[in-house]
């Protein structure tokens, strides 16, 4: 029983990080029709930005804030302006290919210009663990869950409870109708890119302390984010959450109870099953967007 709880908790914590990356991913798809194959690299870059900040002697929180600003400029507005805007009219696939190219470029830049080695990032949470009734839960897991949860709840609140948030939903649901009402579609789409960038920084802050900052760390995170997004439902923000947590937990359960050798495979089988049997995802609705 204790095992199970512990597996569930740490799986959920890991899954929450996947979910953060997946969340931005689905937001981008809904609001802008963008599939970002460089999503993993969007997590990797801020990790290095924070690392650089720390190297200058900044405290973690300040490095984090600066990384947020940089990410918003480069990975948010810059990405939209330079890559997405010129390409979006060509359709989904050219943009997919372009983001693949971008992923390679970003990864290689970090490798060639910075370092190919892994670097530790200090954890924002204290080390140690909490023991209740024989179940050990580390502070890192609790902190991760709390922060990821707060971000998700905050984001949901923003989307549902503010006029801007609802305007963003309106753009995602029906861009033409939104435009007719005078909603500034370009700005709303830009906000989505900014949110995606900031979510990536948070994911980086949570993931880099254990997984280490490395130029190719995005490969695995990006892949998990895609799988999470598709499993949960590409056009549902809640879907990304479900998908992320499901993968995190399942990986742990399978790794423990079945075989670690095929750990990666199980998320995959789940993903392939979803794609074949319910392409709109577990929570998703059939796609209305005409391709």
């Amino acid at each position, binding site marked *: 029983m204790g095992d199970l709880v512990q597996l569930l908790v740490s799986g959920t914590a890991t899954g929450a990080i996947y979910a953060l990356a997946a969340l931005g991913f689905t937001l981008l798809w809904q609001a802008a029709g963008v*599939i970002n194959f460089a999503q993993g690299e969007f997590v990797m870059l801020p990790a290095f930005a924070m690392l650089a900040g720390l190297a200058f002697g900044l405290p973690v929180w300040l490095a984090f804030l600066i990384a947020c600003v940089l990410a918003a400029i480069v990975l948010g507005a810059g990405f939209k302006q330079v890559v997405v805007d010129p*390409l979006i009219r*060509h359709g*989904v696939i050219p943009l997919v290919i372009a983001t693949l190219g971008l992923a390679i470029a970003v990864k290689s830049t970090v490798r*060639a210009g910075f370092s190919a080695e892994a670097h530790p990032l200090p954890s924002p949470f204290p080390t140690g663990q909490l023991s209740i009734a024989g179940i050990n839960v580390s502070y890192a897991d609790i902190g991760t869950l709390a922060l990821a949860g707060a971000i998700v709840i905050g984001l949901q609140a923003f989307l549902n409870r503010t006029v801007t948030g609802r305007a963003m939903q309106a753009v995602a649901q029906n861009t033409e109708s939104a435009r007719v009402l005078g909603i500034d579609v370009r700005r709303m789409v830009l906000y989505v890119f900014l949110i995606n960038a900031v979510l990536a920084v948070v994911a980086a802050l949570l993931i880099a302390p254990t997984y280490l900052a490395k130029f190719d760390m995005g490969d695995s995170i990006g892949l998990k984010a895609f799988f999470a997004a598709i499993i949960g439902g590409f056009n549902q923000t809640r879907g990304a959450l479900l998908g992320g947590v499901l993968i995190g937990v399942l990986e742990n359960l399978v790794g423990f109870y079945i075989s670690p050798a095929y750990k990666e495979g199980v998320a995959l089988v789940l*993903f392939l099953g979803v794609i074949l049997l319910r*392409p709109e995802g577990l929570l998703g609705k059939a796609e209305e967007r005409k*391709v």
Partner: protein
Amino acid sequence: MSAPARRAAMLVAIVAALAIGAAFLKRSDVYLLTLTMVYLMATFGLNLTVGYAGQMSLGQAAFFGIGAYVAAIALKAGVPFLAVMPIAAVACFVIGLALGFPALRVQHHYLAFATLGFNVLVYLILRNEEQVTGGTYGISAIPRPTILGVSFEGHLAYFHFTLASLVALGALLWWLLRSPWGRAFAALRDNPIRAESLGVNITAYTLLAFAIGAACAGVGGVYYASLVEFIEPGPFHFSTSLMMLLAVIIGGSGRFYGPVVGTIIIILLPELLRGSSHEALKFMQKWYLVFFGLAVVALMVWLPGGIVSLADRFRRRSTS
């Protein structure tokens, strides 16, 4: 001389130049050229799947791997090379048919993810099913072929053998794409719904597009195993599929010679830069992938038809 005849003459000249010129190249350069040709077999096939039939695939490296492992196991068991090739091709063809099924249900980026997932699964199997695949140790001492008493053990001999095989495979594909099948594939790519209303069996052609592409990769895998003489799961990771897809697209998907240009850029050029001692080239080597990645982005913006389509642009400009 008519345009097709001129093109044919040019092709013969290039092949002849390669065949003769290789004798004057260093062993490592011959190896690289051979390696490029081996990958080219797989990207030729991928171009059929992606470029001609319009089916997104990020699983080509899996078939490359299946071909290589089938070859390694069969060759080591003493099966003659000429028998191994069809075995590997048929195996990949059949598995390729299976991979086509998701394509009947989902398209575009969903299909990309599905095929990518397939690649990851194959990779896991190659790594974990040790009794068959040798696991992470891989399989070593894979022999090079001896056919009708002629040994292709030497690097030049193997190069010529691969070159001849590549030309044969290319000719086969050329013929296939010129046949009504090629037109049916294009119809499937451009407008599957209309194609079906015109009697095109889109189920069959979709599956065939994957299966034929997979078979080409399988053949490439056979030559790869025999060339490197050792295989392990690493080279068949999905990142290779990704590079193969990029090779097809930057070269010019749906254009016969697109993969040639793309594969040279992806396989040959970086290897040529590697280990060179010129300062400028050393710099290029270090930043090659950065330039490459940015070039892919730029290409998608300005030249979505790939590098080969540049020729069309010039032609159009000169005629207008």
